[in-house]
Structures are given as C-alpha cells and as structure tokens.
C-alpha cells in the first residue's frame, strides 16, 4: 500500500518538498537550541513551561478527537462515517507524533528521554502520559493500517481488530484526561487546580479536533477529489457544535466560581488574561479575540440552516479552531504560571527560535498526515469502497 504515497502529481510533490524545506529550516533552530540550551526560548524561572507545552496540550485534544468518528461508527453503526473514520484514525497518528515532538523539544536534556522508561515512576502523571500517548499511537497505527490493508485486499475488517477499536475509544478519553491531570493536581497553581479541567479538556478536544479534521477533509475533497459524503460532514458538524456549546459553558463555570467567590487566587489569572494585572497583560488582546471567535462560531454553527451551508460552515469551523487554540494553546499553560505563587508577574512571549521549532514539528505532523491520507484515499478510491 505504501507505494501509493510515492505516486503523485506535481502539486503533491511540491507540497511534500515544501514541508521538508520547512522542517529543514526549523531544524536549524533546533540545533541552535541544542547547542545553547532552552535559553533561546522566552521561558523563565517563573514561566517554566511555554509555547511548546501549550502546543502539546492542544494537539493531544486533536489526537483524542478521532473518537468522535470511531465511537459512532463502530458502536452505533453510523454508516455515514465509513469514508471518514480512516482519516480520523490517521490524523490521530500524526497528532500524537506532534505531541511527542513538542515534549522532546521542551526537554533540557533530550538525550536522557529514556530515563522515563528506565526509571518508571508511577507517582508521576508524566509517566502515565507517556504510556497513554504511546499506547494511543500504537492502537491507531494497528487499527488504521490493518483495516485499510484488509480493504485493499478486498477482505472484511479482521476480527481481532474489534476489541482494539473498543479499547481505543476508552483510550482516547484517557489521553486527554491524563494530560489534564498533568496540570490539575498541582498545589499553588490556582488556574489549573480545578476539578473540571479534565472535562474542559475533553469538551474542547471534541470540538476543535473534529473541526480541524473536517476542514482538512474538505481540502482533501477539493485537492484529491475524495468526497467524505455530505451526511458525514453534517453529522460531524452537529457533534462539533454540541461539543463547543459544552466547552463554552464549562469555561463560564470557571468564571462564575472565580468571581462570585472572589477568592484572589482564583480571580487573578482570569483578570490577568482578560484585563491585565498590575500593568501587565500581554495576552489581553488574544483572549478577547478568543471570546469573539468563540461567540461568532456558535452563531454560525448552532442554527442548522447556517451550518448546512458550506460558505457559513467553513468560517464557523475556522473561528472555532482559532478560539480553542488561543484558549488552550496560549492562555491555559501561560496563565497557570502568571501570576506566580507569590503574586509576582513575569510576562512570557515565545521567541523566534521557539516559534520556528514549533513550525518544524507542525510541518512534520502535516507530512505524516499527507502521506497517510494519500495512502488511505488511494486505497479507498481503488477499491471504490464507500
């Protein structure tokens, strides 16, 4: 099947070469970081996790989102997803690899990475995050590849895959729950110390991930002439809408708890993010853009007659992706560190090397996604399976 990734028109190869070039440029900056240390980033003693870990957190959600297709397709026999499920599973593979990439570049001593395996530490949530992320990667590779292979050979899905599929449904929930637990149990970090964090992570994952998947699938429809099916698009759009409503509701619960209780630790980060605190507020503009994007996306997605029109659905999805990315990929991680546990404020902004290294990792993810989707779409077209 892999040969399908090696046959493509000029546009396909131009895109592959472009991604390789971006990865090449990014890797020069990563070399710079390897030589000089994390001092090339904007991180500090006070804001000790920054853009990398925030991107990792966002992409775990994207990886977990495949379950929004796998669950209805396998458990509720939602036939409309038959052309989409493989795209979701393969996007999960690319997304998990992006997550692992962000963790590796965030380490001060990346060559000691395997210490996590050599000295397994069950009391550390990071240990469990390693287990669930790698497990989910493996599950999706095995499930996606064997199902596609069977289809390629004209066979029905192998029986032994079924239990793995059910396992992957639970597992998808676990990857984002465990990632939320990384933050959720820390004393002195008020913004993260909330029992609803894991639920917030899941609700945002189940809208942002499928939204990205849907946009990419619509691009594939244009570029590769592979139609995921109108019914699949609309069902997924409905799922995305419900998840976003819950996501916004959960966020408002946090706002109520913080400001009605008026406990300083709980209000300070929200105040810093949305109004600025003691003259510092580099994320204020971003957070209001988030709020506007979130509301507009709901306006475009909630009325069925709006989201059934592609010209309104697509902007709705893009606004949703922007809102969830600002919330999780910028505000959540940095906000957890500002103000610090002593009410001190050290602002943070990613540096150019930090951004270029992040772009490198995203380009790697896109390359993996392109190749996997090329194979999947090639097989699907060849067998004519719908």
């Amino acid at each position, binding site marked *: 099947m892999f040969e399908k990734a090696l046959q493509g028109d000029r546009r396909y190869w131009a895109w592959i070469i472009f991604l390789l070039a971006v990865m090449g440029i990014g890797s020069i900056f990563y070399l710079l970081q390897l030589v000089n240390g994390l001092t090339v980033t904007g991180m500090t*003693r006070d804001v000790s996790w920054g853009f990398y870990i925030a991107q990792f957190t966002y992409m775990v959600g994207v990886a977990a989102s495949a379950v929004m297709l796998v669950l209805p397709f396998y458990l509720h026999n939602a036939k409309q997803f038959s052309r989409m499920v493989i795209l979701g599973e393969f996007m999960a593979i690319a997304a998990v690899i992006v997550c692992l990439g962000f963790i590796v570049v965030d380490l001060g001593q990346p060559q000691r990475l395997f210490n996590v395996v050599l000295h*397994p530490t069950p009391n550390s949530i990071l240990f469990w995050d390693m287990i669930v992320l790698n497990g989910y990667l493996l599950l999706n590779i095995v499930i996606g590849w064997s199902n596609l292979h069977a289809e390629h050979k004209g066979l029905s899905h192998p029986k032994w895959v079924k239990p793995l599929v059910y396992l992957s449904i639970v597992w998808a929930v676990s990857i984002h729950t465990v990632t939320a637990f990384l933050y959720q149990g820390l*004393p002195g970090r008020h913004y993260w110390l909330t029992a609803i964090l894991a639920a917030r992570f899941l609700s945002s994952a189940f809208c942002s991930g499928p939204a990205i998947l849907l946009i990419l699938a619509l691009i594939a429809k244009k570029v590769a002439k592979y139609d995921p099916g109108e019914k699949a698009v609309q069902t997924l759009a409905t799922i995305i809408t419900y998840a976003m409503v819950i996501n916004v509701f959960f966020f408002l619960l946090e706002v109520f708890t913080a400001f009605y209780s008026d406990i300083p630790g709980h209000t300070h980060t929200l105040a810093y993010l949305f109004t600025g605190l003691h003259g510092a507020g580099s994320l204020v503009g971003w957070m209001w853009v988030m709020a506007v994007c979130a509301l507009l996306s709901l306006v475009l997605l909630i009325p069925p007659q709006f989201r059934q029109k592609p010209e309104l659905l697509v902007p709705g999805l893009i606004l949703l992706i922007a809102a969830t990315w600002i919330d999780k990929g910028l505000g959540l991680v940095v906000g957890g560190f500002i103000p610090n546990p002593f*009410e001190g404020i050290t602002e943070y902004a990613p540096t150019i090397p930090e951004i270029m290294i992040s772009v490198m990792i995203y380009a790697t993810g896109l390359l993996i996604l392109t190749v996997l989707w090329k194979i999947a779409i090639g097989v699907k077209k060849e067998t004519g399976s719908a």
Partner: protein
Amino acid sequence: MDNNRRTFLKIAGISAALGLSGGIPLSLQAYTPADVEYVPTKGQITGKRWGMVIDTRKFTKPEDFQRVIEACHQTHNVPDIQGNEEIKWIWTDHFEQVFPSSSNPYLAERYEQQDFLLLCNHCNNPPCVRVCPTKATFQRADGIIMMDFHRCIGCRYCMAGCPYGSRSFNFSDPKPYVQNLNPDFPARMRGVVEKCTFCAARLEQGQMPACVEASNGGLIFGDLSDPDSEIRKVLRENFTVRRKVELGTNPCVFYIV
C-alpha cells in the same frame, strides 16, 4: 515460501514477547524508592528528620543576609545569572510574598520593610517528588529533598509542582557564571533543575550546612524527631510560622517572626 515467512514471524513474535516479559521484572527492579538506598556513612551528622528554624529577628542588616547567601552560593557553585533565568538556592523576599495568606493591610511597619530568607522547605509531603517522572528529585529517609543532576531530563515538572518557587532551571550552561569555582562540589550542566539540598554533602562530612555556619545563630538546624535537640528547644520556646501550610505540603522550615 509463505509458510516459511509465517513460521519466521511466529518465532520472531514469541521471542519478542519473551524479551519484553524479561524486561518487565527488570524495570520493576529499577523502581526501588531512592530512600531505601540511603546508608549513613561514618563520621557524618545523622538525623531522622532534618528541619530548620529561621530567627528573623537576627537578620536586620543587608550584610546578615548577604553573608548567608554568599556562603551557600559559593559552596555549591551557584551561578550568578541576572534576570528571569536566575539560579538561586537561598534568597530573600518581602513579607507578603513569603507569607501571602498571612499578610494584611495594617501590617507592622517593621515586617513590611523587612526581608525574609527563603530556601527549599524540604516538605514532608513534597509535590516536586510526586511529579518527577524519573525520580531525579527524591526524598531521603531523613527528609532531605535531593536532586540527581545526572538523571534529570529537564522537563521542569518539579518547578510547576513546587508552590514555593524553590527550584531553578539551567536554561544555559551555568559554568561561565560561576566565580571562584569550588572544586569540592560539582558544577551543573545546562538543561537540568537544581535546588537547596540542606547541605547533604556537608552533613556527610560532619559539618553543619554552610548557611547555618555563616548565620551567627540566626539559623538553627537540627533533628525534628529528637525532642532533646536544639531545634526542638527553639521551637518549644518561640512562636513560629511556616509558609503556605494550607497546601498540606508540611514544610520543615520554620520562621520566628
């Protein structure tokens, strides 16, 4: 031919599984809490539960703080890096930062102006140890929270976990920022976290912590589990407070204010 391939795959699969099952007991073996390995050496000062009292009445002039900080940072090759990437094992801050939940708007002026010494609290229930994914930071049986600079992968989870800001990260190579390198203590490399160790290395050689020695009686170090120790006597006779007790970390550094 196909049959051969199948047989080969079967054998390969079984041997891989055997290899894995051999690996599991090995990795379980690796999971031995670090405090079990700790054996006191001869001539060292031993205690069951180390703690420290900071008598803030004895720190009045900037020199009182400077002497103590310099003694620590010189002993442990703590680099002098300015700005947001600074490394500090023992430092000072104002009352409201040190005791955020005990500060009030009508605080006596002497407290408002006064600086307080800060260092790792060597908590009984340390969040940094709980979160470390490699046991690079661990708690010894005598309560000291240690750092293994050679095992640390630089994930900085302990920095997110510590509610006292007691940990520093070597964003860059610290060696160029160390004046008068002390050859008896290792200098760190970039990409690892470091912190106060209650001078575990000096205790092993029968010496008191460097800061205590330099403090002219302002710092009292001793065994909290021994009712006859000097530190327990000081704690009996003075009212003391600890930082952020509401978090349940049970800090072992006490302040006489």
